[in-house]
């Protein structure tokens, strides 16, 4: 559906009729009037991150089957969206990810074991948000969008040029907090990029039951901000489109809403049965648009990706998997006493209950000897 541009001069806020694509599913370049292909060096870095991210994702999927993780929401099929968006940011830009965005976190440089701590169950969030500028992965849908706005607005007040990149799923765009965040960001001209990964489903519910908007990116115009659509399986296009939005935000021109069209190849999590609500043919069709193979084909075609480089990346990816197997294979060491340590800054506040647990633990330890 094509919407006619309103006459208020806001036509530039509307997204393009088709998602921006720079490299098609066969690895051929599809030039775009508004977006340049990233440099070969950037694309090689993206390729490496995709290979590492995919290997991480496969290993996590294996480990959930082995019972090493309580649950794992796979990024399979969405790697280009996550990798491309992160590579479009600076390391001091903040990410506000969901549970789905493990590959984005690994790409930013968060320790993979820290990423999976939540899912293994030793603690809720397993990394220091201030180290890599990554907020805790968020499960209450869309709530993190507002934190991104607050953090970004705070950065501006401090005179910093930090940008916040908010990750969100297609289903979560129905939540009120998403809309409040778009509006707040717009009104405060906060440097935020809202990055929707439209993977077709919210658990079992398809997008057409979430929204009848022409696209999710169209929602932007209601808030007076630009909406963009990008092929989420084309890492080159994601890098270009997100980079432009990040630079716009950094320059003080305000937020952008980006919809990345992608697909969740695996079920919602290992606990889900996707055969109950979607057709295997659809999944096969999307496998044909794989985000890794097209950049692989493109970079081999240009000669940038040599056998030697590819083998090097593959070896690095194996090392990531091996490291995960080793460090996540061991049973986590948890101290139940810590349950009382971080509720309040003042630990004395729960001292009585902590003592009760201490006594129980002492009895258990005594019995164990």
């Amino acid at each position: 559906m094509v919407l006619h541009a309103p006459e208020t001069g806001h036509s530039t806020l509307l997204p393009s009729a088709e998602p921006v694509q720079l490299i098609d599913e066969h690895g051929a370049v599809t030039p775009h009037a508004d977006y340049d292909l990233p440099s070969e060096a950037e694309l090689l870095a993206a390729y490496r991150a995709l290979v590492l991210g995919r290997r991480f994702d496969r290993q996590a999927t294996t480990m959930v089957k082995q019972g090493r993780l309580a649950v794992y929401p796979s990024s399979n099929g969405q790697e280009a969206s996550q990798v491309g968006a992160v590579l479009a940011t600076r390391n001091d830009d903040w990410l506000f990810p969901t549970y789905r965005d493990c590959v984005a976190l690994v790409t930013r440089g968060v320790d993979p074991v820290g990423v999976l701590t939540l899912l293994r169950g030793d603690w809720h969030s397993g990394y220091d948000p201030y180290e890599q500028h990554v907020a805790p992965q968020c499960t209450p849908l869309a709530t993190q969008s507002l934190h991104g706005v607050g953090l970004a607005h705070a950065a501006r007040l401090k005179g910093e040029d930090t940008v916040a990149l908010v990750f969100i799923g297609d289903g979560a765009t129905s939540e009120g907090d998403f809309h409040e965040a778009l509006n707040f960001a717009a009104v405060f001209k906060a440097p935020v990029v809202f990055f929707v990964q439209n993977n077709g489903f919210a658990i079992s519910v398809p997008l057409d039951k979430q929204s009848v908007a022409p696209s999710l990116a169209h929602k932007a115009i209601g808030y007076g901000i630009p909406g963009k659509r990008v092929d989420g399986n084309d890492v080159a296009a994601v890098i270009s489109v997100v980079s432009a939005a990040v630079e716009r935000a950094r320059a003080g021109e305000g937020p952008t809403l980006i919809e990345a069209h992608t697909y969740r190849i695996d079920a919602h999590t290992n606990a889900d049965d996707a055969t109950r609500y979607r057709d295997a043919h659809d999944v096969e069709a999307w496998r044909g648009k794989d985000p890794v193979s097209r950049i692989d084909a493109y970079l081999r075609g240009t000669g940038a990706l040599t056998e030697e480089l590819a083998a090097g990346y593959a070896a690095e990816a194996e090392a990531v998997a091996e490291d995960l197997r080793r460090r996540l294979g061991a049973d986590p060491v948890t101290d139940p006493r810590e349950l009382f340590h971080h509720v309040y800054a003042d630990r004395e506040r729960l001292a009585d209950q902590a003592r009760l647990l201490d006594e129980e633990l002492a009895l258990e330890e005594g019995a164990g000897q």
Partner: protein
Amino acid sequence: MTTLESRVDIPEIPQQATTYTMAQALTAALRDAMAADERVLMFGEDVGALGGVFRVTDGLTRTFGENRCFDTPLAEAGIVGMAVGMAMNGFRPVVEMQFDAFAYPALEQIISHVAKMRNRTRGRVGLPMVIRVPYAGGIGGVEHHCDSSEAYFAHTAGLTVVSPATPADAYSLLRESIEYPDPVIFLEPKRLYWNKAELQLPLRTEPLGRAVIRRPGTDVTLIAYGPTVPHALDAAAAAEQEGRSVEVIDLRSLVPFDDATVTASVRRTGRAVVVAEAAGFASVASEVVARVTEQCFHSLEAPVRRVTGFDIPYPPPKSEHHHLPSVDRILDVVEELQW
């Protein structure tokens, strides 16, 4: 503003004792806190040019500029969620919920993020922020403007919940809440906004977390907080006429709860009545009864009783006086304590 590394301590110049309403004492606390620390920000609905519907933020935008005290779009989850992000990035936001019941859209942010961020991040991200909520009734307000919402917050681990009953405490507890390392739900009893006291500011009263004995007595302890403290004091004065010596405790802080002050009092008097405006079922008053019973059982001469609102939605203005704990109702319950 470029660095927020350290607190800038502007020396506070003691002023002459002046008459302050509770609302004015709150304004003074915000102003002094903002002057003392550039990380302190104030935002919410109508808090800018108007100064808030209760005028608590009066003059702050004029004094500190629009970056420090500002109006937001009308969305409470947005206000609180934005405060979370700003607190993560070095500020100490104070936000205003316009009325008690209008904080409900923000409950998800408050329960799932404000209360839990320190714990979720294993202590790495604390959220020093204050959510100010004008609460409770007695002002002839129409529906959704008179809720006593304290139990929702008090039940949520990770929150600190305070409620002043005097202008001095309003000033002191708000200053302390703003300096606190964790999020504080600051419940302002609407009907006490216009109560006056002579104050010499800046001042500090007892620390956050401590209850105080507002009136000493020997026969029975009335335990109240926020809007019901004046009723408890009136009831104590009336009981004295009848020859009963009534002690009145003002809790000031619901979470953390000052067990020591409360139990020491009840052990002395042997009788206790909790007075609160909120519906009694599964309430803060219930928690107080449970704690007192558990800790003072062998000193008790009578069951610990509650005088609370009925278990009904807050009544329309013409009927609210039937619902609110009155001096008579308190005295009746005191009389029933197996003397």
